[in-house]
């Protein structure tokens, strides 16, 4: 699975779970997810659970941080690095 596919899968998940009815084009690779309240702390945990189950990876506590999860791009980079 390459980076665009990872982004697409995470984007679909976030749109369905946290932004129902939103225009998909409004959620870009650089939209800030944690610092603008799109994902609160509980939503972030659910995204982490989704990443672990969907991509078959395990995230360590120090990896589930704002630098790695604040945008779709950052999430895709994180998942790629875990799968490498």
């Amino acid at each position: 699975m390459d980076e665009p596919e990872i982004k697409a899968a995470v984007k679909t998940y976030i749109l369905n779970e946290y932004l129902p009815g939103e225009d998909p084009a409004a959620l870009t690779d650089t939209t800030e997810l944690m610092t603008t309240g799109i994902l609160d702390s509980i939503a972030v945990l659910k995204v982490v659970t989704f990443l672990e189950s969907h991509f078959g990876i395990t995230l360590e506590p120090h990896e589930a941080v704002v630098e790695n999860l604040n945008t779709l791009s950052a999430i895709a980079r994180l998942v790629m690095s875990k799968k490498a």
Partner: protein
Amino acid sequence: MTTRALHQLLDLSASRFPDKAAIEESEGDSIRYGELARLSDRVRDRLRQMGVEPGDRVGICLRKSADAVASLFGIMKAGAAYVPVDPTAPASRNAFIFRNCAVKSIIVEAQLADGLHQEFSPVCFAPESIVLDGVGAGVPLTHSLDQLDVVSPAPSTPSAVPDPARLAYILYTSGSTGQPKGVMLSHSNAACFIDWCSSVFQPNEHDRFSSHAPFHFDLSILDIYVSIKHGATLVIVEEQLGKEPARLAAWIAEKKLTVWYSAPSILSLMAQVGRLKDYDYSSLRVVLFAGEVFPIKYLKLLKLLWPHPRYFNLYGPTETNVCTFYEVPQVIPDCQTEPVPIGKACAYCEPLVVDEAGTEILPAAEGELCIAGPSVLEGYWNLPENTAKAFLPGRDNRWYRTGDIVVELPDGNYKFLGRRDRMIKKRGYRIELGEIEAALYRHPAIKEAAAVALPDDNGVSVKAFASTRNGARLSTIELKAFCAENLPLYMVPDLFCCVESLPKTSTDKVDYQKLKAMK
């Protein structure tokens, strides 16, 4: 020992334990009691030099740190009340708070100072500031004071004479009309609670207290003052760490905390995803929670994973501090599906349950809990009408109306049933839905807005409804970003729903029940 003024607690512990760590920060930096007391003396002297007098207010806009603790003690030593704000909240909200109570000075981090001063300039309000390059172990505060001393030395002055009736701090809480309101609390308001904690939790100088709650949140009163009164170590949970249950769970074990105090939400999350079985929590002896209902299934789970500490549910609005408490039994019966009760009144409080007319009701009937006693607030800053409405009319005693509907159980414990107004508790934060609506109304395209709280697995989520002037759909992402610019993040609604118009009742008021039922 009876506490008279909060700032004396630090000096007393500094004389008993000068070389003991008073504050330890998340990364391990610490400051000793002797150093912390001296640093707070320097803050006092600098504030005096800047013209701060007993009875004034001084704002604090700092991340939690030794620097912040030294600052609030320094402010009280100068005889002033400290006004802490959320450094992560929008500058406009913090500037409103500082203007509202006319702070004489502000102690602020450089990265936050510009935003604040931009908000001040249009209204000719420019309190003098002590600006810190950052925070950490008191170093940036010391540096700022050194620099100010070069320009104009601040002579040493004695601390303010303890006056139990003087304001110690003002905590701003969400206001239903859209602006936060300041709860004024005196030294004696806090002191009776702190002394009660001493007798119930038996702290000593070997304890290591968590500081999870931010300093603008009233849970911090127990953390800071009970810990310092007993010469214990206050271990600061850095803001981001405090939201990440997996990392936090490991950190609590590593730091060998003995007393934990927080809202239930982070405890629920740690029970679920913290891998608590993997760590050693043998030091932990007391777990305190307050601020919202603890879902019973997660409390049971937590007690399975952390079986040995004593657990207490502490209840009370900012206006009364903690006023009832309940010790959770060692074993919660499997059949218990209801949350634990809020318990019985603390020794310094008198409870009364009244009906809508304010008349005392029979035991075992539902009614609003009112509280009288020395912990009850002085009033709301500059809001005499709100202050008057907060108390039961026509009585000698000042009975504060909590707005919480309760019932007294046969065993004498109170059970929390709900609210009589539109205030909610989410992740321990107190939120007036009206403040969220007022923020949405500031959006140029929004014609009507309403917010409701819906129960979910972790407590409640907030859903906002909006209709627009031109009928266009608004982007949820844009609305969330707009709210984040005007409200603290915890108040940003979880869900948005665009509607043609809001449903109304027969009296043309927003029909919140219908909104709650909308899919």
